[in-house]
């Protein structure tokens, strides 16, 4: 809980460089120990996917005695004759559509709510805030009845339509937060130069909103990739399953007998999320900080 003022100036006062080095090393060692505990489940799943099915149960160490790639080969075979890439593609399609929809609709909604003046704006803002806290389960049944009446179950439309209609209040807020950080003088100068609201938004503000666009894209992608309840309710044909549904089906049919295959598939399903995160992590952590706390 030490709080340091500035690099070099510690609260504890001056100390000898050697002891500082030792302290620093001890600090890093303890952090890495904590990190190892936190990341243990992930290390475990990597190890398990490389052990044969007997070793997974009997050998509790993280280092596989005998490395086997058999589980990955099995995992790529997918389930019920449908190859794994098919489920990856389904997940990717849903996530990509969600990203496009959420970014486009949240950005314009936020622009209207944060920058334009029109009757009813305050009420609409209130509704956006309320939906942020509203348990989605209450809309689930009527939504299902609507989509089922329109014959849209077992399609991806129920899963993504809300994204195109700015219903993820969280991201409307995120864009509003970023918009607050852009000086209003910019819009005013553009207005004087004769730009309309559409020009102002698309040519001036949108390019400046790039960090918000990136943050929203990453989050939407990952959340859609992980979403389970939506596909559970709407998608019943295995050909159309995204990965979470495949994993659930796989664990029901093979999970008990084939731990290794299960873990290999699980690991593969997590890889895109982790990769996405590693590539964009700087953006991401900055982005959440801005959405949660005024930037």
């Amino acid at each position, binding site marked *: 809980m030490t*709080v340091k003022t500035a690099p070099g100036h510690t609260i504890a006062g001056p100390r000898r460089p050697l002891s500082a080095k030792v302290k620093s090393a001890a600090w890093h060692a303890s952090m890495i120990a904590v990190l190892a505990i936190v990341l243990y489940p992930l290390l475990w799943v990597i190890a398990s996917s490389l052990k044969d099915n007997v070793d997974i149960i009997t050998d509790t160490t993280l280092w596989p005695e005998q490395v086997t790639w058999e589980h990955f080969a099995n995992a790529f075979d997918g389930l019920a004759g449908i190859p794994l890439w098919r489920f990856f593609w389904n997940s990717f399609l849903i996530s990509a559509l969600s990203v496009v929809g959420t970014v486009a609709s949240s950005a314009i909604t936020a622009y209207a709510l944060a920058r334009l003046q029109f009757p009813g704006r305050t009420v609409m*803002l209130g509704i956006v805030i309320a939906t942020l*806290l509203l348990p989605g389960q209450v809309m689930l049944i009527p939504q299902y009845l609507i989509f089922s009446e329109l014959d849209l179950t077992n399609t991806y439309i129920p899963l993504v339509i809300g994204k195109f209609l*700015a219903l993820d209040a969280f991201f409307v807020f995120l864009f509003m937060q970023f918009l607050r950080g852009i000086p209003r003088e910019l819009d005013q100068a553009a207005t004087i130069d004769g730009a309309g*609201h559409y020009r102002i938004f698309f040519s001036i503000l949108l390019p400046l909103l790039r960090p918000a666009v990136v943050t929203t894209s990453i989050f939407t992608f990952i959340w859609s990739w992980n979403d389970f309840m939506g596909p559970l309710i709407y998608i019943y044909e295995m050909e159309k399953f995204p990965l979470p549904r495949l994993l659930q089906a796989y664990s029901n049919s093979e999970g008990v007998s084939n731990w290794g295959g299960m873990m290999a598939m699980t690991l593969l399903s997590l890889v895109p*999320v982790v990769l996405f995160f590693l590539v964009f992590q700087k953006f991401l952590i900055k982005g959440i900080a801005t959405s949660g*706390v005024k930037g």
Partner: protein
Amino acid sequence: MSASPSTAAEPKTGSAGEAGAPPVRGPRGAAKRRSSAVRGGERLAGYTFMIPWLVGTAVLTIGPMAWSLYLSFTDYHLIRGGDWIGMANYTAIFQDPMFLRAVKVTLLYVVIAVPVKLVASLFVAMLLAQQRRGMGFYRAAFYMPSLIAMSVGVALIWKALFSQDGTQDRLMSAFGWDGGGFLGNPSVSILMLVLLAVWSFGAPMVIFLAGLMQVPQELYEAADVDGASKWRKFLHITLPMLSPVIFFNVLMETVGAFQLFGPAYIIGGESGAPAWSTLFYTVRIYTLAFTDFRMGYASAYAWLLVLAVGIVTVIMFRAAKRLVFYAGEDGR
């Protein structure tokens, strides 16, 4: 200043001198002086940009909410249809043993998981709020689990780790344990879901970190001059300065915890195995609606959840008025 919904909800009119300009143009000022044609254009643009949201909210939020409220007073069944039965669903719910079990499990989870997760995330955030080499790496590494914690994949990992003959069972058997996997034991199974929640501490941690970075260092320096201990500095500087962020995190985590579904469904199934110990409220709603097709009854369940979350939210906002300290803002 926190950007929790409350701040965004109260557009400040005409507040001058703020770097990022007020979010909303007030009734006075530039807008009023402009011609009505310009304002008409702004109005038109406003509604145009709001079209997707207006359609979505009417068709997929407000409409369904009204419909589900209506359904909750019927015995609507997906296949058989249904009729108006007044309050019968609500009176039946309170005698439904499954309802009481689901409420117990969910409340227990909220009450344990939220504080433990937030304390853990604040603790790690304070460790990471220093100027040291390699800090970016630690922040990213600690944050990462929160991105996947609620996925089906991780729920399956949890199942493998803590079920009968799972790794935890094996490891503990070596020391004479014969209690089996934690997930097979109804008295501790819910704690494994709490553990999963705590594992995803990265999300609130990052928000705490951002808050910690904004605490003025002069406050700590002044406290040092007065000879304050670390603990007193935490209690009298860090906590008050952080209180808006704490409020935001408590609110979001609590509302989220009430709605836990995926991991609970994967780990406990529709019956909340073992012995209903992981029978979460949303799992119950799902089963009633989409396995039993009792959509009227399930709607009543859902509305009670809305009511509960609503009450908790109101209580929190009330408490926040007294407990949350907004630096540099008067009249709060």
